[in-house]
Structures are given as C-alpha cells and as structure tokens.
C-alpha cells in the first residue's frame, strides 16, 4: 500500500534538484565522516514504494539532552497532535524517555516512537489488515479500515501506539487522524515521499544536538548505513527479533 501526496507531478524534478542542494548543505560534516542526515530521494507520484529502500533512524543518545523535547514539539506541530490536558488519553507519537541505571546512577535520555519493525507485531495481530508495513519499512495504520479494537496497542512492545479517545479538530491534511482509531508515528511518510525527512529529525538537527539520523539502511553509501556499520548500535527489545528500523547508540 502506498500513501500518495498531491500535486507532485510537475514539481518533483525541480524539487529534487533543489532538495539535493539543500541536502548537500544540511549534510555538512559535523565531524569527520559524520553528517546530520543522509538524504531521501523523492518518489514520483504514483510510483510504488520499493523494498530496495529500508527507511530507518539512528539515535545517538550521547547527543540527546535530558529535558529537551524539540523532537516531540516538532512532531506534534507537524502532525497536528494537540493536548486536551487529559494525559492518560492524549496521543503521543513520540516521547522522551529518561533512563537511570540504579546500579551506577548513569542517566540517559532518548526519544521513543514507533520503531518501524521489519516484523511488526502490530501488523501481525491486526484483524483487518489496517496496520500495515510499506515495502520501504514504514509501519502505518490505514485509518479507513481500523476498527479501533486496540489489539495492536496490546501487541506493540514499545508502547508506540495511541488510541484517539475523542473528536479531533484542525487536522492536517497530510496526517489524517480519526476518533476511535489507532495511530502512531508515520515517520513523516508525507515528507519522505516528497524527498524530505521526518520533522523530529529536522528539529533535532536545527534546534538541538543533532542526535537523530534518518536514512536508507539498505543503501551502503547512506550515512546511516555507514554509521551503523562502523559504530555499535542497539535495537530496543532486540530479544524479540523484530528488527526495528530505529536503532540507538550510547545505551
């Protein structure tokens, strides 16, 4: 399945060239061999997503500051996620988690969101197939066929999914949501399909420590693939064998 966006036909080539230029600038080395992100290539409208690509993220927790929530704010703004003041029922697509090792006192902070597993339990358990994984590894919910059973929320090991507990207003056209359905991080699929990067990654690079690296794990030339090849990284709950697309460094 494929999430398409509008009005891309004529502008794609120009946009790609423009974005490639931006990528060149944004991908400036911040240390020898280390860049903020590798760049996604825009997809033609109507062009099917392909499994040649595996979108992923590498999060360097050493650069993630405790108390910084730029990624969370950016996600909320991008996807129109507001708060009602009822924290227990408010959706959270991305959250900051603080870790403390009680034996050593060591503290870590990291963003946690849908890990876009290669073997997603949410997709396995969904009775209608509303939870699905695109060929490029992005795990999404089809809001038209989600019946709101919440079995995926029971099955997700990362607590990445939220149920929409009440009516929504002021939705973003690129991020449709609906009362009575389940939702989670889309990896900003609307941006990726236009050749962009997720809002959280962008905000972290622009306004914070640049802890988040986005890219194609399948492309050996991509920055993310080079980084995970060179440095040790960790999958959360690797014991489950789900092969998440989000990896962490420094924990």
């Amino acid at each position, binding site marked *: 399945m494929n999430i398409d966006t509008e009005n891309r036909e004529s502008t794609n080539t120009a946009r790609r060239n423009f974005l490639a230029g931006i990528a060149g600038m944004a991908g400036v080395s911040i240390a020898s061999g280390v860049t903020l992100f590798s760049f996604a290539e825009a997809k033609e409208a109507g062009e099917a997503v392909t499994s040649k690509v595996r979108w992923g993220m590498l999060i360097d927790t050493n650069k993630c500051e405790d108390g910084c929530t730029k990624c969370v704010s950016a996600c909320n703004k991008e996807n129109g996620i507001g708060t009602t003041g009822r924290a227990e029922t408010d959706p959270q697509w991305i*959250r900051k988690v603080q870790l*403390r*090792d009680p034996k050593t006192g060591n503290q870590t902070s990291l963003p946690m969101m849908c890990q876009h597993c290669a073997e997603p339990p949410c997709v*396995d358990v969904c009775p209608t197939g509303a939870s699905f994984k695109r060929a490029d590894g992005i795990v999404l919910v089809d809001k038209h066929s989600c019946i709101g059973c919440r079995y995926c929320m029971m099955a997700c090991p990362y607590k990445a999914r939220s149920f929409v507990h009440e009516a929504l207003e002021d939705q973003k056209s690129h991020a449709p949501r609906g009362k*009575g359905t389940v939702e989670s991080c889309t990896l900003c699929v609307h941006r990726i399909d236009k050749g962009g990067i997720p809002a959280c990654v962008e905000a972290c690079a622009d306004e914070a420590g640049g802890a988040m690296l986005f890219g194609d794990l399948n492309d050996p030339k991509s920055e993310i693939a080079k980084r995970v090849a060179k440095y040790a990284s960790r999958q959360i709950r690797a014991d489950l064998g789900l092969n998440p697309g989000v990896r962490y460094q420094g924990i």
Partner: protein
Amino acid sequence: MATATKTIYRELKNDPLKYYLAVGLTGLIALIAAAAAYYMETNGHHVTGMNNQIVWGMPHVFAVFLIVAASGALNVASIGSVFGKTAYKPLARLSGLLAIALLAGGLAVLVLDLGRPDRLIVAMTKYNFKSIFAWNIYLYTGFFAIVGVYLWMMLEKRMNRYSSAVGVVAFVWRLALTTGTGSIFGFLVARQSYDAAVFAPLFIAMSFSFGLAIFILVLAIASRADDRPLGDFIVGKLAKLLGVFVAAVLYFVIVQHLTNLYATEHHGVERFILLEGGIITGLFWVGQIILGSFVPLVILFHPAFNKTRAYIYAAASLVILGGMTQIYVIIVGGQAYPLVLFPGMEVKSSFFDGVIHSYAPSLPEIVLGIGGIAVACLVVMIGMRVLRFLPTSLADGAADPHHNIAP
C-alpha cells in the same frame, strides 16, 4: 439401556405475566446498555476508564468471560453425545442454547466497545489471516453455525441420528474456539504477564468451569420457574463435575504462576500480581483464589455441603464471580504492569513508562458489560419459550438410568 422413561421436552409454559415481566426487564437492561455504548461512541473513549495504558477494560472482561463461558456451556451436550454419558443427554438442548446465547452476549459487548463499531462490515470482509482476532471471527461464526446445526439435529426427530456426529464436530470446534480466545493473550510477546502457551489450556479449563457453573444456575432457575422437577441425581452429578473443573483451573493457574516465578525476568510482574498490586493482588487472592476456587472446592467436595442445593448454587455463583475476577486480573492486571523496554533500568516519561497504570472503570463500561449478560438471558428466555429445550422432568426417576434398578 435401563432408562425407563422417554425424555419429553416442552416449551416453558409458566405464568405469562411473570415471564413477560422478566423478558421486559432484561430487555430494558439491554437497551440501557445500548445507550451506554452509544454514549461512549459519540463522546469517544475518554469518557470510559480506559486509556492509552489500559487499552482493554471492563467491556473486555465481560466479553471474554461470556465468550469463554459459551464454549464451556456446550460441554454438557458434549458429555452426552461425544462421551456417551446418558444422564447428560436430556440436558444437551439447553446446553446448546446457552452456548449460543452466551457467545451472542459476549460478542455484542466486544463489538460495541470497538472504536468504530460502525465498521464491523470491515472486520467481516477484510481479513489478516495472521491475526488471532481474524481467526476468532471465523471460530465464533463457525460456532454459531455448528451449534445451530447441532440443535437442529437434536430438536428434529428425523435428524436425531446425526446428533452424535455433529456433537463431535461441535466439541472439537469449541476446543479450538477457546484455544483461540486464550491465544489472544498467549501470543502477545510484548507483555510480561502474557506471552505464555499455558493460556490456551488455562482458558479451556476456565471455559469448562464457568460454562458449567452458569449452566447449573440456568437449569435451576428455569426448572423452578416452570415447576419442573429437578432431581438430586443430576444436580449432584453436575456439582461433582464442576468441582473437578474448578480444580483443573486452579491447577493451570498454579502452573501459570510457577512458570513465571521460575524465570527471573518475570519476577517483577509476579510480584505485582501476587504481592504488591493493591486492588489487583486483592482480587487475585480473595476473589479468584479464595472465593472463586477454594470455597467452591470445599462446598463441592465436602459431604457436609455437596448434598444441599443452596450450597451447590452458592458454589456455582462463586465460580462465576471468581471467573470474572480472574479475567479482570488477567486483562487489567496484565496491562497495569508497565512494558519493560529497558530491563534493569529505572524509566520515566510523559507517557507513563515505568509506572504501574491505574484503571477506574466508568459506569457506562460496566453497564455495557451487564448488557451482554442481558442479551444472553434474553436469548435463553425467548428460546426456551418458543422451542422445546427443557425436559418436562429431570426428577431422579427420569434422569438416573439406574434409578429403578434393584440393588
């Protein structure tokens, strides 16, 4: 065969005023429950006690209880037709009706709690065959169909000869159905308190126990309402069987917890359920173990109690109460314990990571659940009034094949 008298079945003929009053009241409860469901759907689930931490609550406790009990209620028929126990045969029709009724009640609750119940057609037309939920949709509809045919074989004289064969199919199907229900939890790899194969046999044992407890009470109430004799022989037999089933559930519960207690990684969740879980711990020990298991076991096996109807019915009621409690502990308790993403680390976040989640069921949720029971009662009441489900007599002379044999 020593059966002296032939079993005669008749529709319920009791006082129409009382009957219609009972149907009316039960219908009213079902209507109120429908209104509660409507209220939850229009306002969204924030008006319930459920949230992003406890995603399944009271409606699921009622629904799972009724669905599990449904397959168990069919056991009485299975014992007659599959295992050839003659004494149970007169009870087979009621057993089938009760099974269908309980499943209908459970499914009604489950469906009305969906975030989008209006999309039920999606669930009926789009299937992901890796989902246990999707399997269950087939298992449930298949159960209705098979038990429906089974009842037809039993009610229609010309078809009686096929009833044993269909009974075998129904028995196998009901085992699959409860395996499916248990596996909803057993296959959840993410959560500490689930992810265990024991949930399938545990749920089967639970279904035997809860289904039979409900059957005993329904049989007693219907017989009394219609002034039909119900002898000690059949009640005693059912009571003894219930005792065995309660013991079987307790056995699987012990296996479930001992297995977890052996593995260090599960110590946290076991400590929560068994010792430090507050209301969950209280419900487990007092509701499920003492009142739901030990007390019924004493009543059902001790000769001082197991000859007295009132005690037997009290034991059956306690089994039902204990069963509801057990499912509450499984569903709510299992979710209240947080997911372990980083073993050995202290975790906190704005999304309630690392903390025990609280759940306070709201009135509409509870009313919806009770509505499921009302739907089951309506099906049984109407069914028994229009069709011949209950024998005219279950007195010892009619029910006990050896009653008239000289010692």
